[in-house]
């Protein structure tokens, strides 16, 4: 059996934590949403110089707890102490003044403004006026220090998801936060970027900052943190030091049961070509070519994965294939039919499913109910509608069954989708896309933001679909996962495919080099 030790003394040689003063203490935090108890009496101690991993599966209450510390929500019960003083944090501004900064799970930036302008905006929040021009050198300096690639003049809407996350990180760093909360920061990073982030976090910890690192990836929690707090269903399930547990033990603590991985790639048996892309050229938002002559085929029963660092044209490629963006040159064929520049609706009705990159802004309508979001593409089908009306009763009934089938945690199918936790929003989208009986599934980082159990669930769904003869085009930044499930892997760099390999011939080293353009 596993020993659960409350450790405060070992580890981290740089600073003697036992003697260091407690920086933040949260005591018995309770937070309820309707009938859902998101936090059920959680206590947490944060020390300077420590990286504290907050581990838990989807809906465990991690984001809620940190949103309370950051002043986004107010706790129903419980107290917060910062440097020994009892505080009441009523807004993120309060939190920032207390030296608490947060990088959200979903970046919150003003789309129309530039990187520098966004950062300067948040600085005025803490009472420092700084014009974008003045802080530009500081942004560049910080970015260089931590090895990040940013263009301070780029507008947010031009940036990919992971680039936006980087901007958020810079924003918090610029505020000189003492406590840094990162809500699932690694989900969109490549493994080399991840390593950079971790060494950067270490550096910050050695400077005496406290880092709270939310994750549900066991390996990450084990490799980077000084201490791990495991949350399960709104409670602290355990607090352990990483050197005292194994991955398996940690998984059991997090899930509450033994996990058996069912994800296993089966030998392929592909048939006809489902998707064929020929010499495709697509322009990006800024009007510059982002996809420059891409050709490939995805066959029935095949998982074809395009790996690459975000921002190399993957988004534009996917949008062109799914009808959301104009093709500048080249052709797209679906089941032998030329579907270049066809409307998204026609494509969806023909059997093209799409799990988009941006879940909140594209994947769901946050203010519509969970059921309506599940039916976002089906409300018009004869199953759920008459000539003019939508049969809501049938949608609700069907939604309840999908909620059960995909284990979406939602108090009711009628609540707005925005109230679901990040992972549950993702399950909702998956449920919707799989329920359309697709012939082609275009999945952009489909396991992004999901815990181990859910990741396994999704991957097994993809493999199951493949077995039924669905063609899967996956865009992934998670190379290891791609190698685990794909049949073919292609690398995208600066708008072009740098080679397509059957997975048996793929070499992880070589691919990583290709992803950053070295090869």
């Amino acid at each position, binding site marked *: 059996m596993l020993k659960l030790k409350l450790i405060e003394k070992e580890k981290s040689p740089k600073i003697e934590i036992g003697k260091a003063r407690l920086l933040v203490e949260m005591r018995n935090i309770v937070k309820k949403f309707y009938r859902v108890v998101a936090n059920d009496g959680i206590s947490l101690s944060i020390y300077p110089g420590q990286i504290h991993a907050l581990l838990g599966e989807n809906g465990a209450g991690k984001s809620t707890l940190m949103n309370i510390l950051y002043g986004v929500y107010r706790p129903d019960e419980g107290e917060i102490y910062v440097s020994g003083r009892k505080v009441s944090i009523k807004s993120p501004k309060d939190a920032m003044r207390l030296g608490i900064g947060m990088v959200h799970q979903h970046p919150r930036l003003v789309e129309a403004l530039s990187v520098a302008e966004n950062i300067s905006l948040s600085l005025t929040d803490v009472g420092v006026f700084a014009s974008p021009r003045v802080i530009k050198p500081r942004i560049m300096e910080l970015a260089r220090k931590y090895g990040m690639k940013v263009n301070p003049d780029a507008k947010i809407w031009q940036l990919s998801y992971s680039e936006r996350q980087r901007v958020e990180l810079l924003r918090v760093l610029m505020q000189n936060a003492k406590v840094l909360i990162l809500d699932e920061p690694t989900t969109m990073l490549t493994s080399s970027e991840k390593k950079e982030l971790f060494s950067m976090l270490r550096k910050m910890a050695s400077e005496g900052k406290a880092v709270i690192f939310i994750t549900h990836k066991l390996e990450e929690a084990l490799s980077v943190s000084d201490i791990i707090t495991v949350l399960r269903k709104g409670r602290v399930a355990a607090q352990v030091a990483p050197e005292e547990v194994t991955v398996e033990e940690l998984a059991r603590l997090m899930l509450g049961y033994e996990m058996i991985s069912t994800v296993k790639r089966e030998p392929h048996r592909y048939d006809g070509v489902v998707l064929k892309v020929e010499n495709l050229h697509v322009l990006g938002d800024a009007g510059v070519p982002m996809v420059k002559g891409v050709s490939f085929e995805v066959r029935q029963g095949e998982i074809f994965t395009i790996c690459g660092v975000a921002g190399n044209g993957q988004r534009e490629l996917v949008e062109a294939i799914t009808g959301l963006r104009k093709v500048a040159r080249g052709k797209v064929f679906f089941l032998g039919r030329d579907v270049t520049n066809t409307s*998204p609706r026609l494509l*969806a009705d023909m059997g093209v499913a799409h799990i988009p990159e941006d879940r909140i802004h594209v994947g769901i309508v946050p203010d519509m109910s969970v059921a309506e979001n599940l039916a976002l593409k089906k409300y018009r089908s004869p199953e759920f509608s008459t000539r003019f009306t939508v049969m809501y009763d049938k949608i609700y009934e069907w939604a309840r069954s999908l909620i059960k089938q995909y284990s979406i945690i939602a108090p009711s199918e009628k609540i707005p989708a925005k109230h679901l936790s990040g992972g549950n929003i993702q399950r909702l989208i998956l449920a919707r896309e799989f329920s359309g009986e697709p012939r082609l599934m275009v999945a952009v980082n489909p396991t992004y933001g999901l815990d181990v159990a859910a990741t396994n669930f999704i991957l097994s769904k993809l493999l199951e679909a493949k077995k039924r003869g669905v063609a899967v085009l996956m865009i992934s930044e998670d190379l290891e996962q791609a190698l685990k499930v794909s049949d073919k892997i292609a690398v995208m760099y600066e708008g072009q495919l740098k080679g397509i390999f059957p997975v048996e011939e793929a070499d992880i080293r070589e691919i990583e080099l290709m992803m950053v353009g070295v090869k």
Partner: protein
Amino acid sequence: MPSWIKLVRRADVTRTTVIAVTAASFIFAFLLASIIFFWQGINPVAAYHDIFISAFGSLRGLYFTTLKAIPLLLCAVGLILVFKANVWNIGAEGQLLLGAVAAGWVALYALPNAPSFVVIPVMFILGAVAGAAWAAIPGFLKGKFNVNEIIVTLMMNYIAYKIVEYLIYGPWRGAGSWGYPITDEFPETAQLPLIPGTSIHYPTLVLAILSSLAMYFLLSRTKFGFEVKAVGYNVEAARYAGISFFKVCFVTMLISGALAGIAGVGEVAGLHHRLIYPWSISSGYGFSAIIVAWLARLHPIAAIFMSFLLGGLFVGGYAIQVSMGLSYSVIHLFNGLILICLIASEILLNYQIVLPRGELKWQRLKS
């Protein structure tokens, strides 16, 4: 804002919050207006009493209030639909006038001798078509080329004013109007029937109430309503789901214009019985309907009550004009204050105010 007041984001907005905040902003507008009354040397309590009594205190008052509520409701119901789609039609006024013009053409030139049961339906239908056509232009430009619909609809109001003026000063000026810029009176067959003993043209009233019920059904039950909500809440996701922005934008504009056009038919065929100065045909219903739509928080059934409320305010405004010697523009001032307070109260819907000691809670989330 003083730094000791804090705004805390609400986790969720319930219906009670919406009602409470709306009522509070309405009352706040009245408080603000009191200052002006005081300044004018008038006791605001007496003024509000007079307004209320004259609008709702007698049958006669109620008739007048109803007369005002009819066009307000028709226009507001249409606006609710476009606003739900996040499209900004500020042109109900012009669309209403075009409906009036269509009615005038039918009554005076197209079917002057036809029986009522022909003329009246034709007037309503052509009025709706004319209003819709007027709204179709900005709807098309917005849907296809993303041209700013606020500016186009607003500007088209002035064109509509000019069209009516041109007609009553020019080709349509009546033979029996002694040179006044008005048309001839509509033939009796083209005058809407009234509720006996009142001047309420009930066909329009019935149409208005039916339109609000139909709109409720459209928004909450139909495929098109689903699409409108999706586009209005998140246009990106709607596009991704294959919902056509053009269709939603264009069709909501058409419907909104048609309802305003019907209101215009009601005003000229039910009340004035001729085309007159444009600002006398409508007295700004197309704009006041925007306030009705927001007071109702874009709920079509609530709009019925809100149109009567605002209609009553108009009637009360006339009354205090006489009894207290105030200018009628006080009512426009009221309207403006209400709209400003409503817009300002949006923030209270999404945030709750926290005072230094304890919290001033408008609602409790915990059940």
